[in-house]
């Protein structure tokens, strides 16, 4: 048990760390290469996705193996609006992506949350693969395996088409995505600290008891599913202009597996764990891919190590180290 002074000190330490970390990320493009900033940009998009994904996995106890579906919904919304309708306002793209993904998540979620554990995982995987087939086969609409181009969006109504692509991505688009990550992380923190967050954890730990205490288990699982779907759509919509081209691979089950990997790597029991997992995954993948073509083999080994030796992920390892030092 901690006394009040310790709690306040810990809280202040966390706030200071977050502010320092935020300022560091904000100023990163000023002193690093464009490539590093670009990798960070893709991390921001994945970070939004995994922080939403962890509401479902870490907080509610439902492991989805088809969550990349909603990322693809966001990415294809950006592609459709910019290249088919010549509509470039990023804020509207994000709103449309959230609406489409939420509607789809509401529908798929209503079916999936009736099941738990392996059945839930398999159902979500099946829906992900259904969407993959849809994107692949309806080529006149989606461009099939070639996918679709994503044109440069306007940010807050400003057109940046005169600026070179990398400069745009690592400049204004970097700041825009980072701001959204900061806001959405704060919103998620509010959700997990609210009575809903408490009820989701209760459902994860013991759904039968939660139901006897008046918690609408199925309804709140569905809420978590829809919220996490909306987060993934924002992540996908932000990733799309960064990669410039969307294709059905975005919803393939291995991409859903990447989201699971990032979350496990960072630690699903910690609020910021998935973010740590996301940044480590992206930079590690870049490093390992440049060293060997068998990078999946190495990543498989890392995943096996984490599941066996450090189920709490990197965040779990850090906290146990801190605890050991204290004692």
């Amino acid at each position, binding site marked *: 048990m901690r006394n009040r002074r310790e709690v306040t000190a810990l809280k202040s330490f966390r706030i200071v760390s977050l502010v320092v970390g935020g300022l560091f990320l904000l100023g990163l493009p000023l002193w690093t290469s464009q490539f590093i900033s670009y990798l960070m940009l893709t991390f921001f998009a994945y970070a939004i996705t995994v922080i939403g994904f962890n509401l479902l996995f870490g907080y509610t106890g439902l492991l989805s193996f088809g969550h990349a579906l909603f990322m693809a919904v966001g990415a294809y919304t950006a592609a459709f609006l910019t290249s088919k309708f010549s509509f470039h306002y990023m804020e509207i793209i994000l709103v449309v992506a959230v609406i489409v993904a939420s509607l789809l998540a509401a529908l798929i979620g209503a079916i999936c949350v009736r099941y738990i554990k392996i059945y839930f995982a398999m159902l979500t995987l099946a829906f992900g693969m259904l969407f993959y087939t849809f994107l692949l086969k309806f080529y006149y609409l989606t461009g099939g395996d070639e996918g679709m181009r994503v044109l440069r969006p306007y940010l807050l109504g400003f057109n940046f088409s005169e600026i070179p692509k990398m400069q745009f991505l690592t400049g204004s688009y970097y700041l825009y995505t980072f701001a959204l990550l900061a806001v959405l992380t704060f919103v998620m923190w509010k959700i997990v600290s609210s009575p809903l967050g408490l009820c989701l954890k209760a459902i994860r730990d013991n759904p039968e008891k939660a139901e006897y*205490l008046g918690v609408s288990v199925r309804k709140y699982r569905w809420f978590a599913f829809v919220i996490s779907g909306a987060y993934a759509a924002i992540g996908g919509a932000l990733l799309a202009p960064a990669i410039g081209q969307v294709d059905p691979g975005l919803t393939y089950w291995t991409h859903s597996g990447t989201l699971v990997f990032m979350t496990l790597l960072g630690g699903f029991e910690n609020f910021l764990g998935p973010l740590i997992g996301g940044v480590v995954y992206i930079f590690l993948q870049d490093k390992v891919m440049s060293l060997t073509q068998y990078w999946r083999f190495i990543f498989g080994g890392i995943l096996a190590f984490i599941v066996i030796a450090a189920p709490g992920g990197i965040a779990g390892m850090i906290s146990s180290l801190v605890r050991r030092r204290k004692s």
Partner: protein
Amino acid sequence: MILSAEDLHKHYGEFCALGGVSFQVYEGEFISIIGPNGAGKTTLINVLTGLLKPNRGRVFFKEMEITGIGPERLSRLGLARSFQLVNIFPNFTVLEFLMVAIVSRLGKVKNFFSSLLRDQEVTEEALVVAKLFGLDEKRDMLTKNLPQGDKKMLDVASAFALHPEVILLDEPTSGVSTSDKNKIMETLVSASKKIGIKSIIQVEHDMDIVFSYSDRIIALHQGKILADGAPEKIEKDEEVVCTVVGQKECFKIFRAVLNREN
């Protein structure tokens, strides 16, 4: 009449767990359901609280049919239960555990962005319940680290935190040392008075507890009601007592009754 069971039947394949159980519960009653293992006591509680749907028969609560409507809706109507085996959220603190019941009772879950820690009403109510059950000093302890007796108490306390009108307690003193049993029962009775619980129904094996605290006893045997009446009436019915508690316990009870009457 606050709760009534009409001709409840429940079968598990060939096995008949409940074979036509009917009874009424009135306001202010403390009812104990007794019976040997396999008599259908827990099945009866599960059917009454909507966890199981009966094959036949109906359950009414405050004149509304509640057969199989499920625990969540029942808790909102004012019927709560605790479990025979400790049923907790292992990674929660004591206070968080009680807060789950309180936020759902107060309908606070729908506000996604309200801070739980800053909600004085929820915290204070959780503390009141924790205090009633002697758990206030352990409020920040993780429930998985509590001693067995406290875990049992917390499970019961969370049901009380719902402020139900009727509470069903499935062996509230099981797994607790004999010396603690009376303490738990005293706590339960006093907490129910403070919270305003109208009726208590408990399943209990300990005959000392049953005869000391009940206004009425329902004896179940092979899924049917063997006897239903005041403790003074039941304890004199040799057939009922011997069927329900076994020969050895039976003689003990009769010796106690005889001693008292002499």
